[in-house]
């Protein structure tokens, strides 16, 4: 790494990180020089020129090669036009100002060939002052117009594209402005974040995000299946009693709310001949909703993974994270004070953990812990299975029970029991914390989450099994409507229980905590439990949309009300969280949960419904068919007869219906996945090696500085006069090694001066 003869020269080209120093020019501190870094020192993976200084950060996100030069190059203190007058702050005079100028030129050159969108993105991401960015933008525009003037005649097509992209950008800006103005609850979220911080805010953001799904589903189903059906409504002869809101049955059975109401005919209005095939509309609308939700989830998940995935090898206990990740969103005075207190407590705990982390447990202690874990898992799984069995037994006997009790409210028993289970058992699981001890607190959080998820998913699974295997096959009436009603009841009961819990339960808890048992204090918002409830409700909505197209609308209203209720309850009954909650990681996990098993479970259920079940014979858009999917088959058949749509048939037969195509596709996807996996493994190894290299270079640096100091000492003894002048430059400042750095830098002047001297 070092060649012997150049030792002195290389030593002092120490990497100064020349950040844009927006400090006072009159500062008496030594402002570090903007020295170029010898690229031999720089790590192998950086894609740098030798001139551009520091920060390989952009190289990590290597999405466009234009970005290579747009790392955080030295933001000059003054604007580019003034770099030449920047003599008082650089040690080596004009050499460095022209160096900055070169960097500036490079930056401009790299910006010119980019598309305007990328250019704007790059300019925005520059860590420079506004004035510098403005000048940069002006210069780039000027250069670009100079260049484009030359090729003006040749490329009117490029000009056309330019104006189109400009118009598109303006449109996008206007659209985002519009969306921002109708963005819900901005002020409320600001207040919540100000008092409770980012972690609690993440729950409300998640709620808002789910609301968007439901709004979209509602708009689609409303436009494509509800409105057409409303134009051909039949008379509703049933009586309306108020109980329908709870049971969903009765009057509502014959409304657009349920599958059974929809016609299977082709709607025709007037003689214009425009026909609307309800069967196809129904299946395509629901399918389209699900496909859009699928891709939306997939992209959200990918985005979260990309931003928040941590290499588990480099995970640390993170006291540095506690210090540097102060929550800037907290703005309330009392919240800030509380947060400071909590931070101190946490930091103290972290320190004591670090002191204790070398304590090894005896075999006895480990055995006790292990058996406690096993027992807890056995008990929790047992409870979950018992609950599922109870639900199944109750569901099976539901019909008999209903026959015996003529009260129409009796149908609410099953949803009531399910909601009770969802209320009580998670709290029971939380009590395991008293018995189990974990090494790391996040293990505790994950274990609790997994148990709750297992409970909820198995309950939904059991219910789906019951619905699809028993209700669908044995029922004489409209079984789809029955299932829709059951799901509606489940959702409604869940909503009522949540309301009661928020309004009454949390209020009571506050009274108990503040008045009766003062030691308990206020409770903290349990983000995990609340998010899981949201996921549970959303899963039910997705399953139920096929049987009850109005369900997204109901869920929309529910979420809307829940937001305000939770907000009010939060402000009244809760205190800010005391421990750091890794909001981003948790959100990634929750969105992953929403995708799998929640959404994939929904897809499986609906797939079984559509491919395997027989629609009921006298209600709904698919009456009379053997399978739901037959509607698609018959449509393809009709298309076959029309010559202009043969391409659709071809796509269907060869891409969707063909096994070979999926086989090849799967093979390609597997190969690509394997390749990416190998690349990732290689990069992990590279990261480790580079990390070691950094450490080694640090050690080298310290070693060489020590050597330099020794040499300096020796030379001082040899030539005392030469060094008296420079001593004035050395300001006593800070810790010793900084002084050594100054000494090193000053030494370079002396060495080069000395080297020139003999020559002179």
């Amino acid at each position: 790494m070092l060649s012997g003869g150049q030792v002195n020269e290389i030593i002092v080209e120490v990497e100064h990180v020349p950040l844009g120093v927006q400090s006072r020019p009159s500062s008496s501190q030594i402002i570090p020089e903007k020295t170029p870094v010898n690229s031999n020192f720089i790590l192998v993976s950086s894609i740098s020129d030798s001139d551009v200084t520091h920060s390989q950060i952009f190289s990590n996100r290597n999405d466009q090669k234009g970005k290579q030069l747009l790392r955080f190059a030295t933001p000059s203190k003054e604007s580019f036009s003034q770099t030449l007058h920047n003599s008082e702050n650089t040690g080596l005079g004009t050499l460095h100002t022209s160096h900055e100028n070169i960097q500036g030129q490079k930056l401009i050159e790299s910006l010119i060939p980019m598309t305007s969108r990328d250019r704007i993105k790059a300019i925005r991401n520059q860590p420079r002052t506004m004035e510098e960015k403005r000048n940069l933008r002006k210069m780039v525009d000027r250069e670009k117009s100079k260049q484009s003037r030359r090729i003006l005649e040749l490329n009117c097509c490029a000009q056309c594209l330019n104006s189109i992209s400009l118009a598109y950008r303006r449109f996008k800006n206007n659209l985002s402005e519009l969306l921002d103005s109708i963005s819900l609850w901005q002020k409320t979220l600001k207040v919540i974040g100000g008092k409770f911080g980012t972690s609690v805010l993440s729950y409300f953001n998640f709620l808002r995000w789910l609301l968007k799904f439901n709004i979209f589903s509602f708009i689609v189903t409303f436009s494509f299946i509800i409105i057409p059906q409303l134009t051909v409504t039949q008379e509703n002869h049933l009586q309306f009693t108020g109980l329908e809101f709870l049971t969903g049955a009765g009057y509502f059975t014959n409304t657009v709310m349920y599958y059974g109401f929809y016609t299977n005919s082709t709607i025709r209005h007037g003689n214009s001949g425009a026909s609307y095939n309800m069967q196809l509309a129904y299946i395509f609308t629901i399918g389209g909703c699900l496909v859009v939700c699928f891709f939306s989830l997939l992209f959200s998940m990918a985005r979260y993974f990309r931003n928040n995935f941590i290499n588990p090898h480099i995970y640390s206990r993170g006291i540095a994270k506690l210090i540097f990740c102060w929550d800037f969103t907290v703005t309330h005075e009392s919240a800030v004070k509380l947060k400071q207190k909590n931070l101190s407590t946490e930091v103290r705990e972290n320190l004591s953990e670090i002191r204790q982390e070398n304590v090894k447990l005896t075999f006895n202690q480990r055995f006790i812990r292990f058996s406690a874990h096993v027992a807890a898992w056995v008990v929790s799984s047992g409870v979950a299975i018992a609950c599922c069995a109870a639900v199944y037994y109750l569901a099976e006997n539901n019909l008999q029970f209903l026959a015996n009790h003529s009260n129409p409210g009796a149908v609410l028993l099953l949803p009531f029991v399910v909601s009770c289970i969802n209320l009580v058992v998670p709290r029971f699981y939380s009590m395991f914390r008293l018995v189990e001890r974990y090494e790391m607190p996040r293990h505790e959080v994950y274990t609790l989450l997994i148990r709750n998820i297992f409970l909820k998913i198995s309950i939904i699974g059991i219910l789906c099994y019951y619905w699809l295997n028993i209700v669908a096959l044995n029922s004489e009436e409209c079984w789809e409507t029955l299932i829709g009603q059951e799901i509606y009841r489940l959702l409604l009961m869940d909503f009522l229980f949540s309301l009661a819990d928020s309004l009454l339960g949390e209020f009571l808890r506050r009274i108990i905590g503040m008045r009766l048992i003062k030691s308990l204090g206020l409770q903290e918002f349990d983000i995990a439990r609340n998010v899981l409830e949201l996921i549970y409700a959303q899963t039910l909505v997705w399953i139920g949309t096929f049987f009850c197209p109005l369900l997204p609308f109901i869920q929309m209203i529910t979420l809307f009300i829940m937001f305000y209720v939770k907000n009010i309850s939060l402000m009244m009954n809760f205190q800010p969280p005391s421990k750091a909650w890794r909001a981003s990681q948790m959100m990634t996990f929750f969105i992953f949960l929403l995708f799998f098993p929640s959404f994939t479970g929904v897809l499986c259920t609906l797939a079984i419904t559509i491919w395997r079940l027989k629609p009921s014979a006298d209600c709904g858009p698919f009456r009379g068919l053997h399978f739901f999917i037959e509607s698609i088959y018959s449509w393809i058949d009709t298309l076959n007869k029309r010559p202009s749509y043969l391409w659709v048939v071809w796509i269907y037969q060869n891409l969707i219906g063909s096994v070979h195509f999926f086989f090849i596709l799967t093979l390609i996807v597997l190969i690509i996945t394997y390749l990416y996996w190998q690349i990732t493994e290689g990069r992990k190894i590279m990261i480790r090696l580079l990390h070691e290299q950094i450490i080694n270079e640090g050690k080298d640096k310290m070693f060489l500085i020590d050597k330099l100091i020794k040499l300096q000492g020796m030379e001082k003894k040899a030539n005392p006069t030469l060094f008296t002048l420079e001593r004035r430059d050395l300001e006593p400042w800070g810790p010793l090694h900084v002084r050594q750095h100054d000494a090193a830098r000053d030494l370079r002047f002396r060495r080069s001066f000395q080297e020139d001297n003999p020559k002179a």
Partner: protein
Amino acid sequence: MGNKQAVFTHEQLEAYQDCTFFTRKEIMRLFYRYQDLAPQLVPLDYTSCPDVKVPYELIGSMPELKDNPFRQRIAQVFSEDGDGHMTLDNFLDMFSVMSEMAPRDLKAYYAFKIYDFNNDDYICAWDLEQTVTKLTRGELSAEEVSLICEKVLDEADGDHDGRLSLEDFQNMILRAPDFLSTFHIRI
């Protein structure tokens, strides 16, 4: 969204839009927030680019900043001369970087500058002590504070030179995905 406002010229607004993460409406909203801080000082007509600085005391009294332990450092970092008095450009810059659209690297860069109290482009032990003191508000003893600083340097200092460079800081931020959402001031 017509150009009915008379505060900025069309070019100025476009430039602001291109140089920050804000839309036109948000820029106008921010301008009025800025103007509200010092109505006598800030003119309602910026077409002539007046050189107006709102003093730090007014900036620090904004509800978004008034209780932030680092408000002074934030104002210093983003101000022109490092003294905390901010022009409109600085103001917009500050909230643009602290908005949720700014990328992680930009935020990490400015966070590094905020935590670098002595502006020497390294976070040394003294900087860390200042940071920890501001964060814990005197709850911890001096010994605990120095222990914490030591631990932080142990964890984050990659090249073991006793202080954190920008790379060390950014490397550490990579392991803290929450940073993006916590280094965020909503306005």
